[in-house]
């Protein structure tokens, strides 16, 4: 599954790069001022898209609910925080996640529903779809024989892919047997 691995690595690094490279949207910064109740004025929250140097009560709290002399007292109680986010990262992440999930779902549907149907139709033709006959071979020497004799590389790409996929399916089946059927691991 080297291709899967490479795709994953690519995704991870794209992700890290994108998060640094994404341009700062003006909407992605804000200053949030929380002002507690004062006399008969209720508690309020004020938000504005200003930068760090303008993030204080005087710039953000508009319209000022108190006048003149009380402004300072009111502003002293307000707490202003500068916040930044990266909406580009969020967008890229969610889209990437949903696309991977979609691909996996399609592959799952293919594996569970379509392939058995195709198998039944092409039963006579294909040599590629074999039953798992060399799994769990109890004879240690036969196994070692298999191992050491499998040194010829298959020049055909399609055969290689098919072979890799078969091996992966066998491994997953073994894992499934261990976990779900015999409850040997991960109960």
């Amino acid at each position, binding site marked *: 599954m080297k291709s899967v691995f490479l795709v994953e690595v690519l995704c*991870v690094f794209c*992700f*890290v790069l994108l998060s640094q490279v994404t341009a700062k949207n003006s909407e992605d910064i804000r200053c949030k001022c929380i002002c507690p109740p004062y006399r008969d004025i209720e508690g309020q929250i004020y938000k504005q898209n200003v930068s760090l140097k303008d993030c204080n009560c005087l710039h953000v709290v508009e319209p000022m609910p108190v006048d003149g002399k009380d402004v300072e007292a009111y502003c002293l109680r307000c707490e202003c925080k500068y916040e930044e*986010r990266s909406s580009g990262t969020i967008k890229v992440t969610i889209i990437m996640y949903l696309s991977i999930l979609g691909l996996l779902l399609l592959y799952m549907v293919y594996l569970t529903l379509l392939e058995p149907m195709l198998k039944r139709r092409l039963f006579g033709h294909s040599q590629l779809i074999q039953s798992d006959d060399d799994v769990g071979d*109890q004879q240690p020497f036969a196994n070692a024989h298999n191992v050491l004799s499998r040194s010829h590389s298959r020049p055909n790409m399609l055969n290689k892919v098919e072979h890799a996929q078969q091996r992966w399916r066998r491994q*997953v089946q073994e894992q499934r047997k261990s976990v779900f059927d015999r409850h040997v691991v*991960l109960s």
Partner: protein
Amino acid sequence: MEEEDAAADPYLPYDGGGDTIPLQEIPRRGSNYAMSNGGGVASSTTHLLDFLEEPIPGVGTYDDFHTIDWVREKCKDRERHRKINSKKKESAWEFTKSLYDAWSGWLVVTLTGLASGALAGLIDIAADWMNDLKEGVCLSAMWFNHEQCCWTSNETTFAERDKCPQWKSWAELILGQAEGPGSYIMNYFMYIYWALSFAFLAVCLVKVFAPYACGSGIPEIKTILSGFIIRGYLGKWTLMIKTITLVLAVASGLSLGKEGPLVHVACCCGNIFSYLFPKYSKNEAKKREVLSAASAAGVSVAFGAPIGGVLFSLEEVSYYFPLKTLWRSFFAALVAAFVLRSINPFGNSRLVLFYVEYHTPWYLFELIPFILLGVFGGLWGAFFIRANIAWCRRRKSTRFGKYPVLEVILVAAITAVVAFPNPYTRQNTSELIKELFTDCGPLESSQLCQYRSQMNGSKAFTDNPNRPAGPGVYSAMWQLCLALIFKIIMTIFTFGLKVPSGLFIPSMAIGAIAGRIVGIAVEQLAYYHHDWFLFKEWCEVGADCITPGLYAMVGAAACLGGVTRMTVSLVVIVFELTGGLEYIVPLMAAVMTSKWVGDAFGREGIYEAHIRLNGYPFLDAKEEFTHTTLAREVMRPRRSDPPLAVLTQDDLTVEELQSVINETSYNGFPVIVSKESQRLVGFALRRDITIAIENARRKQEGIMLNSRVYFTQHAPTLPADSPRPLKLRSILDMSPFTVTDHTPMEIVVDIFRKLGLRQCLVTHNGRLLGIITKKDILRHMAQMANQDPESIMFN
């Protein structure tokens, strides 16, 4: 070496299940796998003839579900290091290679930290979004969750801060109205629908693509780090499926967390990257150093607690933790935390997960409720471990475990149906914890903070003195009690489902709820009885005395400590999570109390209990062996068993050797000088013998069934017409560990633990008597503790 009969354990996985060094891979990966010797002194390489022998490919690798030989791996590594160092001065190229070799360790942990941080960022963002998908959608930008959608809105009044025009709940979208009973029912229905579909997707993906991706992962990683091999457990598909389904499982509202699975994800990254460097890919012991560092990185990104992560790796996960691993773990945790922080898309408000903003002092008398919370934590921990193990055992052994998909859907349905009406269980568990940790500030509008104010309208707002609870607080307390009971019950059934599930966040939630309830109770006690001695000493009337948020924090730490039995790492994680450095002493008091109370009921934490349930061959370094048995009472063969299967050093033919291998199922055979003298020569492993014989039949001419097999340096004298003999000295371990039959078992267990042995030969007066394997020791310990010795499955 004894092993289960083939009938009891028919699964002898010779070609393994995974995608890393099964037997098939060996010819492709070249001939660098062999060692010059079975694992000790490299004396045989000095002989001329040995130089002509090429190393046998495949010798030195391990089967699935077997334990590695730590001694052999460490020797291999030292040999490799010596070779590189000796060639260092030859040329610039060799020097560069030696530099590369020295630095490859740091490179691996850097890559692991980067990947863990990136994946944790992805999981965080996606889980937050999908969680809010149960409630509604953001129409202007579909990829924003509720908080981000309303980020730029201009609603100023405090009551309206959660509403904004762009965020529409499902009832609003489908029915067109936001309030009213019809929309409540529609919201309820959509919540259940989304929860069920996420849970169903998660379990289907796990079942179809990577069955090893379910569960927490920490028990299996503990076992792997102690030397066990589970092929495919840390593979690429497991990594991908675990990442994807973790998001789905968290979003479906099940009572689970993502910390344990994040450790698994980080270890998968570590394993995958270690295959890029031959120093780590070919040596199982070195690979485990990388995995220790990776687990530190995993906890670091799960909590944003790098130091806590290193301590967690030290205390909880790793088996051998030399100083070098400490530095590497430190570095990996640092890199991972840095990456996560730099990706952090939610702005500065999320740097620390549950940041506590109060710095009020705590008083000495508050230690009493803190210790009570510790006792609660210990009791709950013991109860949870027993209940969860009983449930998992039932799932494992009865027909009930045959329907994993149905079970997940059922649990998710019950959780969703019961969780929706209570606002404290409907929200994300992390948000609940955050709300409970936060003390009531001036603008808190949650029900928990609706105290009855005593001042009349003209007096200015005073900062939160002790006040009597208003009706809002009482109703909140009721809801919290119900939430507590619900979470306690559901977590028992949720941990162990066939989806990725972690335990930290639910335990912390339970503790936080209990702590907050106790905190509010003490606060009200202090208000109504402010003339009691205790309160009069420390609390002034009208002053802020009790912070219930602190009690929630202490309760969370106590419950987590009660269930996992962590001590130092837990305290460090909690104060890194909250930033509350003033509160270390109460945390420590509560954690110690919960550990003592929990240990009174059973010495194992949840992870050790799961290891024992699965029968993994994990020799716990924390337990002491205090019985007075001797080695000869534990060794095999017993009196009633057939005699020990041994090989003689130059008497056997290939055919006889093959029949010994075929008829028995032992993992290794001692080699003796002759049947009369029974003096020990060495130890040979089954896998190595089979590979060597097959290899010889292919590569060497004239090896036939009646060829003599010899383990000595020189071939025995044979008649002139006999076929060419087969030399198997290179696979023989010339330095097996031996003890005498009168050695106390305490020492034997200590040797096994400290050296990481798999088997140890027993001699009597210099002659070979029997063998003790790790499985025998585990069985013996189980027998001594009156547990079922047959539950030890692997060796």
